[in-house]
């Protein structure tokens, strides 16, 4: 019954949303968004570091294919957000820690370890950060088997193949990355 009621409520909204979608490009907050392989991550982050980005945070998702780590980077002088997405197998974690490039990543990685149990390779101090050290049971943000969604369901029309970071184009893109709405005051 509730399903019925909801459908009737959301039907006009969907139309509304569809209309606005046509008018303005959908806001995602990302100026650049890449999938990278775990072994390329360090190199990609190094390139971002050289381009003057700072690490905003590391977000993580539990999905059918495993874990998806999302690294958000932004820049002070020429704002523009870059997202790096790394897919992780559920059992074997081979994502490297980036704390030696961004010391601020230390705590973000510990948080991911807390909430998802992801073991970052080479992290010096992978202790619980926000949770009780005596916490029993699975990490709190792990989803039930039935609740997990796949990449296609969450990102309906997205290319999810990892980008080749050796490519010149990748370097060029992140160097020129900028938020179109940002206006330089000077």
């Amino acid at each position, binding site marked *: 019954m509730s399903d019925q009621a909801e459908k009737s409520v959301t039907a006009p909204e969907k139309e509304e949303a569809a209309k606005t979608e046509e008018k303005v490009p959908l806001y995602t907050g990302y100026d650049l968004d890449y999938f990278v392989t775990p072994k390329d991550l360090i190199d990609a982050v190094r390139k971002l570091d050289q381009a003057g980005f700072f690490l905003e945070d590391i977000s993580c998702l539990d999905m059918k294919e495993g874990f998806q780590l999302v690294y958000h980077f932004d820049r002070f002088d020429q704002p523009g957000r870059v997202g790096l997405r790394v897919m992780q197998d559920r059992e074997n974690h081979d994502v490297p820690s980036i704390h030696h490039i961004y010391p601020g990543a230390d705590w973000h990685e510990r948080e991911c370890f807390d909430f998802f149990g992801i073991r970052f390779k080479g992290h010096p101090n992978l202790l619980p950060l926000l949770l009780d050290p005596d916490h029993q049971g699975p990490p709190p943000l792990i989803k039930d088997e039935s609740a997990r969604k796949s990449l296609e369901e969450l990102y309906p029309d997205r290319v999810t193949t990892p980008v080749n970071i050796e490519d010149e184009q990748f370097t060029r893109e992140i160097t020129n990355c900028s938020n179109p709405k*940002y206006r330089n005051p000077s």
Partner: protein
Amino acid sequence: MNLDLRLDTSGDFYAQKFQPTKREDTLILNMGPQHPSTHGVLRIILEIDGEYIVRAQPVLGYIHRMHEKMAEVMSYPQYLPNPARTDYLHALAWGWAHVGAVERLMGLEVPERAEFIRVITCELNRINSHLLWWGAYLLDLGAFTPIMYAFDDREIIMDIMQRVTGSRLTYCYYRFGGVSGDIDDRFVSETREQCARMKERFKMYKALVTENFILRKRVEEIGEISVDTCRRYGATGPVLRGSGQEYDVRRAEPYSVYDRFDFNIPAYNDCDAMGRYLVRMDEMQESIKIIEQALDALPEGDFIHPKAPKRAKPPAGDVYFAVEGARGKIGMHLVSDGGKSAYRLKLRAPGFSNLSLFGEVSQGTLISDAVSILGSLDLVIPEIDR
């Protein structure tokens, strides 16, 4: 009597992991979670040599409530009050980040009047937050009186806000597509009055406090943080601007109607606690400038989108939305699977990143300076622990 405190192994998990280094004559000191200057339940384990800090390690999680899990089990409207509970001092900015992320994912438009109301209330809230920081920081430095003056001003702002939002601290005012209630003439006139009053008060604060000789000695050249340190740790907000980098989300990723107002981004090149202090003092005045411009240009119209859904149900996809909070960049990474509640909501707390550089900056400082540095970072622990 066991006088060799270095051999004390009775500590908890984190104290045991924090083993003393090979250096002689050092002492492990546990500062917090019940310590007057850690503002709540922050805990810092210090290794000290006399009064000099050799090593410092913050321990978090004492007020961790797992807001991110709550977002996954509560529907979007049910989650509306939650962000205010993370950073209780700048509750509206957090509410805005959440509401804004959902709106953007849904492609929901906000009426212009609602945007102006949001700007006005958010900036009033920012002034409140900075005022409390100002009082509490001076309390940390041993001056008791300023907090009373700050509360004098806060009280008026809270009264103004209470009439429109219904609460005094943990506001839940913003809705998907607008705000929960319209503002009236009394709100406008009272806000104008308060703006005029605050301008006079800032002059007094400057003469009474900022120019005090002892205060200057306690904050100048203390806790110097370079822009590069900020970058490596992801520190934003007044901490970054106190290091001379003009970075403000209101300018960098203009949201709402902020691009229509004329305001400066205060930045000081000193990189020290005084720089951060002055940035916040200036920011309050800039906020007043914004509020006055917004009140002058306040358009008529709806305070909430007439077709705003009662039950938000954004389509599948993900969005990252950031706003400028009193402590820095508040980010929300929202992933939706098209359901009634978020598939994943990641909160980026500015204090989290700002605090993470404390371990590096506090090395070699005195305990008194560490207190000064901690205060200048403007920490709100519930926001850091979430």
